[in-house]
């Protein structure tokens, strides 16, 4: 590797990047938009489920019961209707996901101690929301039951009865159980994968398309010099984008950053090398900017989105898929970035994942260098 040739490629790439204003804008705008889109758009928190109520009794007691739904942050009582037809219509139209129907003799039956059935109609097209609706409703009913039982016991001379068993839960790492805290660091990883591979997917293909490659391969430039020279400027851009995303995660989405910056920087460096080399490799093989950028997008975005543990926890996947995820570099980076952000895990515990990333970085740079032939085919 000769310094003067490497420097020549680096200088040329920087000049070209500087002159290509639209692409430069994309490198700033794309991470910003993706951060906002994913940060706000992808959320697993289910709150404010729209609820309709049909109170057939309209007694003080039934109102008291329904207030508990209103009080819960998980439900949002939209409307009280006075006939069954309206309930059905609301569910059909998607105006509500849950409808509570209180029977006519609600308070009367409660007084006699007999079981009262409150009907809950649930739109289960989205099974996840439906499940959450059921369990939250049950929780509301459960507390209400306890209160009634307690009052009954107190009226009959028993004071201060405690439930025999209770779970004392302390949530670690993400104390408020906010899915943002889990998702946003993952979004940073996905954006890095997409941007990194996109940037380099254009470089070699552009030279073939513009006809400059034929002359370039007739010079003494080596494939290694060409690859390193083209990757260095994009590596710097990739790091700046990463800093931008991490900054947004911390100061905009208020995700805690508990780890060491050095570990974060090291893992980002390795992951960037992986995705930049992958984009470069695709560019070498495809020889067309359009094909290369699309292939790079598919090769990085889909695995990073589906198989890295970003959305679906890897240990919940079928065994075959679980094995496959080991071939996805984003998987290791996803673990590292989440742990560094939320757990503040230090280097020794992340060593396995870092080594896996380093291995991928080495393999992909070798692959990318080897794939480039200084020949016309």
């Amino acid at each position, binding site marked *: 590797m*000769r310094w*003067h*040739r490497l*420097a*020549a*490629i680096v*200088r*040329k790439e920087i*000049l*070209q990047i500087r*002159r*290509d204003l639209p692409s430069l804008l994309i490198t700033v705008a794309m991470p910003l938009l993706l951060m906002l889109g994913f940060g706000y758009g992808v959320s697993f928190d289910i709150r404010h489920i729209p609820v309709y109520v049909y109170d057939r009794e309209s007694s003080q007691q039934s109102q008291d019961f329904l207030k508990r739904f209103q009080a819960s942050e998980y439900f949002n009582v939209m409307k009280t209707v006075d006939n069954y037809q309206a309930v059905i219509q609301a569910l059909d139209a998607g105006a509500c996901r849950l409808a509570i129907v209180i029977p006519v003799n609600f308070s009367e039956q409660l007084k006699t101690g007999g079981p009262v059935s409150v009907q809950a109609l649930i739109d289960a097209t989205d099974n996840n929301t439906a499940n959450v609706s059921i369990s939250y409703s049950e929780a509301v009913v459960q507390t209400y039951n306890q209160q009634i039982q307690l009052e009954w016991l107190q009226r009959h001379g028993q004071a201060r009865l405690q439930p025999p068993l209770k779970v004392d839960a302390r949530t670690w790492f993400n104390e408020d159980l906010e899915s943002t805290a889990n998702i946003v660091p993952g979004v940073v990883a996905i954006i890095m994968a997409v941007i990194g591979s996109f940037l380099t997917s254009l470089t070699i293909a552009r030279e073939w398309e*513009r*006809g*400059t*490659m*034929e*002359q*370039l*391969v*007739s*010079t*003494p*430039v*080596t494939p290694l010099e060409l690859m390193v020279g083209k990757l260095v400027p994009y590596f710097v851009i990739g790091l700046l984008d990463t800093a931008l995303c991490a900054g947004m995660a911390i100061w905009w989405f208020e995700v805690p950053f508990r780890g060491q910056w050095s570990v974060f920087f090291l893992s980002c460096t390795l992951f960037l090398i992986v995705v930049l080399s992958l984009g470069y490799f695709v560019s070498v093989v495809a020889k067309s900017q359009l094909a290369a950028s699309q292939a790079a997008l598919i090769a990085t975005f889909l695995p990073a989105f589906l198989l890295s543990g970003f959305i679906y926890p890897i240990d919940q996947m079928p065994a075959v898929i679980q094995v496959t995820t080991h071939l996805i570099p984003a998987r290791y980076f996803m673990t590292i970035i989440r742990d560094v952000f939320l757990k503040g895990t230090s280097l020794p515990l992340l060593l396995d994942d870092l080594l896996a990333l380093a291995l991928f970085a080495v393999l992909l740079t070798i692959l990318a260098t080897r794939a480039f032939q*200084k*020949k*016309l085919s």
Partner: protein
Amino acid sequence: MSAAISTSELTKRFPGVLAVDRLHFEVHPGEIFGLVGPDGAGKTTTLRMVAGVLTPDSGSATVAGCDIIHDPEAAKAHISYMPQRFGLYEDLTVDENIHFYADVFGVPRTNREQRSRQLLDAAGMDQFRTRLAGKLSGGMKHKLGLVCALIHRPRVILLDEPTNGVDPVSRRDFWRILYSLLQERIAILMSTAYLDEAERCHRVALLHQGRILFCETPAELKTHIRGAVLSVISPEPRRVRAALGGAEGVLNALLVGDGVHLVVDDAASRIPELRTRMQAAALPFDRLEEVAPTIEDLFVAATSETDGSRT
């Protein structure tokens, strides 16, 4: 004096076509050697193999003392190859393009400025140094391509149809620069589809279907055309060729774009005869005149000669 370029039995096959067939030629330092032939004759393929960017199927080639097939990288430091779509970066300025190639070839900064000024002066481009290459005229781009190719003082220059589509002024500059290089004992191998370009070379090889038909000086090459070439511009070239092909004194008749080229033994006497003949046969034609022979005329003459079937 050993040859700067020497090929032997150089062969390249593409699916369904033998592009270059056992080529043998030598180019000496201080010589401009032209590969002449119509499109598809194998000129570009030959240049690419000599430049070390295309691997031949068989045969050997030595460039600047290095085996270009087994060790192409060693030779590349001494070669300058200017492809048809030469490698200018249109989003870089004239100076930046020159500096890029100077860096790639490791030209020391001290020599670089003097060399590039000298070349740009010769190209008449000194005032365009900060202009983006993409904003240059076609002729300017070609000259800049040549300047970039020459910045590192190569020993061998390979030019693929370098003056194709270049205005006459730029073409003159181009040739002046090329001739000035010969004092530096540089060997130049270029391809062209134009006979007037070929005439500026010291020696030319006429390529046909990947084979060299003749390898000689341009003057010798032209002797293959006995007599003169007449051009008949006519809306019905096929009828003209049928009517005049066998006429007395017509050695050859070739369909060209908008008419017919006739090779005749004597232009002065045959023009009136042929004109009368066409008028008698009521053949429509716009013009009948003597023209400079084109590569196709030479080519037809040469191929019919080698086929042994003179008209």
